[in-house]
């Protein structure tokens, strides 16, 4: 995996945690603050943070088309706010998104910060086969819930019955934060897709 150039969109959010996780997983991470940086990348991570803030900055600086175009050619991995931005539909409330994944996402669906949690989830056997066996520690922070997964989507982990890790073609989304744990398997899975 060495040498794979992976961008982390650094408009707002926990991009630094993703950069550190990607580095530990053996990739060459780059913080991406300008659209021109996209051309040199093999893949891009949309981090956690506030999706409304990121969306605002994307509009201010003309990122929407550039990211849609990038996503048609290269893999994207979105966590939490990043997953919201990649979804086809967003609810509670409805907001604009890149529509790169055929999923429907409800924002802040567990409630407020008091409902945030760290928990263990059992991933799909396919996830374990492609990475390594063992439960995943899942950190949910004011997390969204994926309410709909389109025909091409593969659910790689669930929590309380809802999909929390979904793959569709080259793209991957998680509603939790693997970048805030020591477990690198989700990042490694993404790197395998590049």
């Amino acid at each position: 995996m060495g040498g794979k150039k992976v961008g982390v969109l650094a408009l707002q959010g926990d991009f630094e945690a993703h950069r550190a996780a990607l580095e530990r997983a053996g990739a060459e991470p780059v913080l991406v603050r300008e659209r021109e940086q996209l051309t040199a990348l093999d893949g891009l991570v949309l981090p956690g943070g506030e999706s409304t803030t990121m969306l605002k900055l994307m509009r201010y600086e003309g990122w929407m088309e550039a990211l849609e175009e990038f996503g048609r050619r290269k893999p994207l991995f979105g966590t939490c706010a990043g997953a919201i931005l990649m979804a086809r539909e967003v609810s509670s409330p409805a907001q604009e998104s890149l529509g790169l994944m055929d999923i429907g996402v409800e924002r802040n669906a567990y409630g407020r910060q008091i409902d945030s949690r760290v928990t263990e989830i059992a991933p799909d056997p396919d996830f374990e086969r492609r990475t390594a066996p063992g439960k995943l520690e899942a950190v949910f922070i004011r997390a969204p819930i994926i309410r709909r997964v389109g025909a091409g989507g593969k659910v790689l982990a669930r929590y309380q019955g809802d999909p929390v890790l979904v793959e569709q073609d080259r793209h991957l989304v998680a509603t939790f934060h693997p970048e805030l744990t020591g477990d690198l398997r989700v990042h490694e899975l993404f790197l395998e897709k590049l």
Partner: protein
Amino acid sequence: MFELKSEQFRVKVGLAEMLKGGVIMDVTDAKQAKIAEDAGASAVMALERVPADIRKEGGVARMASIAKMEEIMRTVTIPVMAKARIGHFMEARILEALGVDYIDESEVLTPADEEHHIDKTDFRIPFVCGARNLGEALRRIAEGAAMIRTKGEAGSGNIVEAVRHIRTIVKEMKHLTILGREELVHEAKNLQAPLELVEWVAREGKLPVPNFSAGGIATPADAALVMQLGAEAVFVGSGIFKSSDPTARACAIVKAAKNFNNPEKLLEASRDLGDAMPGLDVAKMPESELLQTRGW
């Protein structure tokens, strides 16, 4: 004593991680909260009066009214923080019951206890606390704070104190990284902070929780300056709603927090903003009017 690796503490720090690179704006009602959210604020801070008004009007400054906070929580989808008085653990309990996303145990409000800060380990809601130096930051973290912000001098529109505080914290952290173990014991004594946190900072070269800046940020350039100095996000209090064009200024400071390393984009963000809030010369203010000396 709290545990840095506990699940509850990681969930608290987790939300602070999500706020990095963003702007947290003081708001007093739902209308202001909406303006802040639409401009791209990553969170809002609900309070009764912005610091500049507290300074001007005087009197006891308390937790905001419940109706105002509920209205703000209903109006925006971004995290809502609220201030409690230093040491006032029952205001904090009420904020916890209300379900705000973060509590700021803040020197901007009139302190309720001159000796004790709130035992923050005992709450399910995360806390942010102000600090002027490393010792103060580590004492707050030992009490359970999951985010630190510089105190600066709230309501002054003057960045000088925020700069002093972030520079002090960063310099004191750098100093620890070159010391030997026996020197750290002595340093823990000087800093009046727990040895295990002093050792943690010496090893990692940073605070164990996100380190934001507050107190005097009035322009996009101010926001970029404190981020250059090591702040990971900014709080803007009076700076937005005491300026002549709050919407334009709020947008501009959001852009500045993202582009703190890009002078051309900062130039664009700084155009056509109208007048900044009026500023105060902190050096000429009597000690009794300073907010930063509240708490220890």
